[in-house]
């Protein structure tokens, strides 16, 4: 603990926004008035919102102080499983804020918007190459909206065949958003149990797949960090019953250049640009969730599509079978720029990124497997899942371990997910953390395991170093205070 990065420093207090400032202050430079007043009908005009008046200094200090209470990838290692908290390159921010891109109006005539259209066109091609699925839409604003888009594509595909299927298969190792996304399309989720190896059995899927089932939603690698070895057989079973295979590509960071999703039998896949493609997560978003599909599914993709004709790009709505639109414009374009810049910076090294991500996860797994219970002791992909089984004898839980890790200066891993493992601790180091940081994390976790045996109350009381200690979530939900 002595040498851990998470020692306390000076933490400044800061009141709520409306407790600072004074009526009459201003933090905004209004343009000079060069026209006369034109008041509206007085019935329409109100008093204006009850906002505090702050000076620019008030605003700057307020948010600077708030920011210091946050932990980001730039602060330290963030091994949050399934979230791929890799480094967010600074150059990507620069590119996205170039005035020509940041100030571009989305409805400009195409001849005035060739730059943005080319970025979208090329990004689609790159993502097609990386996934092996030839047609791409960039419109979904996040992974869950990508899933919804995928389910709408399933719905449209079956509808064209005059079928209305009512069920969807979802393995117990899939992402938590999957059932909710499927429900928006009226599909009832049928859970599929993984086998004792932590992956899908073709026989189990064969027993559950029928002609009233729209298809299956597979996360591959799955949320145990394991590759679905039987995916080709599973896909064949689903296809034989007229169903489709959806792959949740949130874990694509493990397999860039390693597998081709089309060859695995995947029909529809979403990517999370804010995971695999290095765009920042912004404390909850904006993300971007492009969807990649086979030629068979392409006619159903959202409109507009970007098309190229003799080096000129334009948008086309002429897709009679399209599911329509799921974003007012073209999705989170500013995030797409960052992913585009990342791919151009990496080139073929994307494969190396996946190899290193898998290397780092396996290294952590090997170093920790005697200390923490490892439910599936086999080679993992980009993340590995431990549990608190060995620590339960000291009445120490996964939550306590996670909270104690904060005191050591790390963001905790994902906890209690996947549900298929009790007390899961899901560690995803990513390829951008150097070996020294992996060793520091491992050492911290070893030290915490020792504390669990010797001084378990330290874990139960953790964290003690951040701005606040554990928060009363029960009261927050029972007596909601959602605005001040």
């Amino acid at each position: 603990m002595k040498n851990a990065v998470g020692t306390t420093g000076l933490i400044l207090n800061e009141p709520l926004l409306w407790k600072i400032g004074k009526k009459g202050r201003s933090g905004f430079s209004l343009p000079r008035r060069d026209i006369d007043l034109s008041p509206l009908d007085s019935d329409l005009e109100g008093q204006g919102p009850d906002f505090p008046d702050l000076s620019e200094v008030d605003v700057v200090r307020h948010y600077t102080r708030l920011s210091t209470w946050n932990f980001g990838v730039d602060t330290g290692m963030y091994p949050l499983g399934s979230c791929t908290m890799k480094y967010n390159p600074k150059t990507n921010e620069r590119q996205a804020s170039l005035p020509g891109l940041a100030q571009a109006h989305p409805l400009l005539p195409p001849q005035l918007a060739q730059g943005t259209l080319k970025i979208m066109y090329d990004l689609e091609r790159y993502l097609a190459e990386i996934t092996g699925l030839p047609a791409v839409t960039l419109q979904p604003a996040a992974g869950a909206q990508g899933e919804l888009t995928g389910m709408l594509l399933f719905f449209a595909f079956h509808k064209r065949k005059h079928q209305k299927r009512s069920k969807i298969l979802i393995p117990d190792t899939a992402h938590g958003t999957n059932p909710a996304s499927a429900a928006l399309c009226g599909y009832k989720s049928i859970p599929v149990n993984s086998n004792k190896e932590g992956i899908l059995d073709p026989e189990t899927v064969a027993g559950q797949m029928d002609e009233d089932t729209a298809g299956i939603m597979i996360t591959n690698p799955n949320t145990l960090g394991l590759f679905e070895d039987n995916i080709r057989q599973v896909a064949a079973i689903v296809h034989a019953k007229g169903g489709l295979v959806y792959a949740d590509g949130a874990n694509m960071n493990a397999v860039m250049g390693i597998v081709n999703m089309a060859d695995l039998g995947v029909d529809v896949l979403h990517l999370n640009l804010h995971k695999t493609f290095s765009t920042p997560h912004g404390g909850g978003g904006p993300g971007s969730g492009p969807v990649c599909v086979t030629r068979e599914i392409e006619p159903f993709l959202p409109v507009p599509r970007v098309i190229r004709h003799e080096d000129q790009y334009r948008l086309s709505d002429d897709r009679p079978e399209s599911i329509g639109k799921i974003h007012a414009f073209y999705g989170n374009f500013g995030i797409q720029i960052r992913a585009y810049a990342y791919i151009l910076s990496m080139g073929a090294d994307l494969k190396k990124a996946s190899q290193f991500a898998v290397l780092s996860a396996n290294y952590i797994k090997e170093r920790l497997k005697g200390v923490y219970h490892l439910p599936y002791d086999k080679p993992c992909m980009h993340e590995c899942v431990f549990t608190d089984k060995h620590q339960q004898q000291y009445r120490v839980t996964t939550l306590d371990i996670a909270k104690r890790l904060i005191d050591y200066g790390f963001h905790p891993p994902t906890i209690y997910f996947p549900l298929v493992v009790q007390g899961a601790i899901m560690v995803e180091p990513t390829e951008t953390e150097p070996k020294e940081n992996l060793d520091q994390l491992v050492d911290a976790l070893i030290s915490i395991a020792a504390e669990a045996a010797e001084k378990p109350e330290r874990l139960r009381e953790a964290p003690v170093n951040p701005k606040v200690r554990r928060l009363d979530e029960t009261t927050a939900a029972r007596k909601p205070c959602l605005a001040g």
Partner: protein
Amino acid sequence: MRYLPHTDDDVAQMLATIGANSLEDLFASIPADCLRKDDLDLPGAMTEWELNKHMERLASEMAVCPEYLVFMGAGSYDHYIPEAVKQLLARSEFLTSYTPYQPEVSQGTLQAIYEYQTLTTRLLGLDVANASMYDGASGLAEALLMAVRVTRRKKIYISSLCHPLYRQVVRTYFEPTGYDIVELPYLKNGRTDLSQVTDLDACAAIAIQSPNFFGCIEDIESLAKKVHADPKTMLVVSFTEPLAYGLLKSPGSLGADIACGEGQSLGIPRSFGGPGLGMFAAKKAYLRNMPGRLVGQTKDLDGRRGFVLTLSTREQHIRREKATSNICSNQGLCATAAAMYMAALGGTGIRELACLNRDKSAYLKGALAHAGFNTPFSAPTFNEFVVRFPGDSPETYDRLISKKIVAGLPLVSYYPELKNHYLLCVTETMDREDMDLLVKEVTS
């Protein structure tokens, strides 16, 4: 590669710990018929210098100010973003953190979002606001799905003066549900016509937009009275220009049950249409039916104030298929930007800025009318309005483009009956000379 820190030595040591011989070995457990045979066919890696040059060239192909005068709003607005907001938003503690699942190390994001929720309720005049939706369009779709859940009725009416692209998104979200969507026509004055609603008691919600797609301010109060003639029917007020509520009476104060829309105007660059900000607020009675994340205030073990994500039993990761929405990642950083922007403006500033938008837009509208152009809709407008250019207007429009003026949005592709009609927008970023130039060029 500068983002990949492992040296050959690191790799060798790690492989030895694992007991693997090579990087390829790490994937040996994957069945051979699943492994990719070919290499990734991508452009060669660019240096930072090459990338800068490449991106600058692409950016230079775009029509933006100051080279172009773009009089276009239609759901994406040009407002000045203070440097302070830009720089604060670039604080990497905000930028590079994940969703605040671990509240002890996320208090910055959590308090910022709590403050955003508070400012949003004050701006829209409603009790509760969520932490954001993807954009105005998906926010409207989710508001209408919420109304269906609340009322258990399966029909909605939507004004044809709601943004045409939002209506397309609503239709996409509704397609698998089989719920009925009916579009309402507009009146001669550019406001929504409710006269065709004859089955209010079968209707979950009526959705309008104000200011609407023609820029006209709807009479929300009288619409609300008509809608609430049935006590269950909900009025959903959508918007694309929230700055208007710096000046106009808020939708909540006029009777809206849900107000939702696009918050891009509040300190977020247009960025070719995204990322923006889906703002979403409702009356308290509907809290537990709301989609999206909520931040709530609470206390820590020592009794200090702190914030957490709360009421997550509505959400996808707990309720799974019974969740109120599937949304997970939202537009958190954009919500933070909007809060910073609203804080920088303050109550006094947002009113002054809104007045300036109203006045500048009125100036251009007046100047065009004076020059003999028809502004067909008589209802009051905020910072957008419709004008009819005579005769061969596509030619006029193209001629103006050759002079580096984008004279608004041609409406004919969205409203076939409005040939030669254009939707123009003027914000505080346009000078009087810019507007005079447009009038001069369009009349020449």
